[in-house]
């Protein structure tokens, strides 16, 4: 009892002493909010396919996957507070979830957790520290040579 009790009593005393000497009170940390964008582009097996919404970036997309067509499945944006998540349903049982874990004040990088679920089953969890305004991608292979390109970015 003495072994455990003394350190705990000491910690309590320290906490009380600290709370009394903190006038006018520490400035509360600003609440972190970031806008997170998640989108899914289906890379179809028919190279002629191009979604009208993606025509503007057709040349660049064809450089990336010359043998595929491109169809936008979903694009969603949400403002997240720290530890908030957003799940984007990309169709075909595929869901992409992004959680805003925090911001590293030293590097300015955002700490994001990305999860990919297929038919309710977790296929990938990645923790990504990234500068804001920068996309990262997950490419999921689908049946018959098709793929789903999932993009995530925050700022």
């Amino acid at each position, binding site marked *: 009892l003495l072994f455990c009790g003394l350190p705990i009593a000491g910690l309590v005393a320290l906490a009380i002493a600290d709370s009394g000497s903190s006038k*006018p*009170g520490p*400035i509360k940390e600003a609440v972190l*909010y970031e*806008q997170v*964008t998640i*989108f899914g582009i289906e890379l179809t097996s028919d190279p002629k396919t191009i979604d009208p*919404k993606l025509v*503007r*970036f057709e040349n*660049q*997309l064809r*450089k*990336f996957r010359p043998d595929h067509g491109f169809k*936008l499945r979903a*694009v*969603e*944006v*949400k*403002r997240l507070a720290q530890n908030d998540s*957003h799940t*984007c349903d990309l169709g075909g049982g595929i869901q992409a979830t992004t959680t805003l874990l925090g911001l590293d004040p030293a590097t300015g*990088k955002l700490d994001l*957790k990305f999860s*990919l679920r297929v038919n309710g*089953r*977790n*296929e*990938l*969890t*990645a*923790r*990504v*520290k*990234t*500068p804001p*305004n*920068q*996309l*990262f*991608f*997950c*490419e*999921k*292979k689908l049946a018959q040579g098709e793929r789903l390109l999932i*993009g995530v*970015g925050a700022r």
Partner: protein
Amino acid sequence: MRCDEVIRELAVPSGAMDAAAVKEHLATCASCAHQAEGFDRLDRVWEDTRPAEPSERTWNRLWQRVTLAADAPATLPLRPGHRALRWWFVAIAAQAAAGVLLVFAPFRTSPQNAQGMAPAPLASAPGPVYEFDIEGGQTLFLEVDEAGDHVVCKPRLETTQELLALDEGENAEPIAVAIWDMKFFNYMESMATVASPE
């Protein structure tokens, strides 16, 4: 009325331009109409997601605290003594050892993985958590594929240098992608449906 004048007015409205003339131009110019639609979408996203303006009382309290903090004497960071340093060293060494185990343990159990990343068994609930630290100008790609009863994750990083190399016509490998820039991000964001608060 020229297209650049119309776009400038739409981007930064001065109010000096005749609204009816702008409307007429947009009715006949598909390019400007398309851009105007993009501006509208961006405005809607901004309106739906902009942070709430703090009240005057909140501002005043905040500035009062900023002033108090600025006037307070500077506090030097606490320097740990030798004993504390020794404990820090032990803690860091233990953490490093745990990290090494986490990194190398999956390799031993997954010899079929040629890319050096541990495959995640489909049956296991959360699977492993991969960690990446990206620098400015790098683009991370995570390629996810099913291999038998496993999910394989192959990560790769592409850099701005590779994008430049491609633009210069050099034979850059892997094939770099010139779409992952700010314009693409802005465009995708402007097309987004704003998810409702939960």
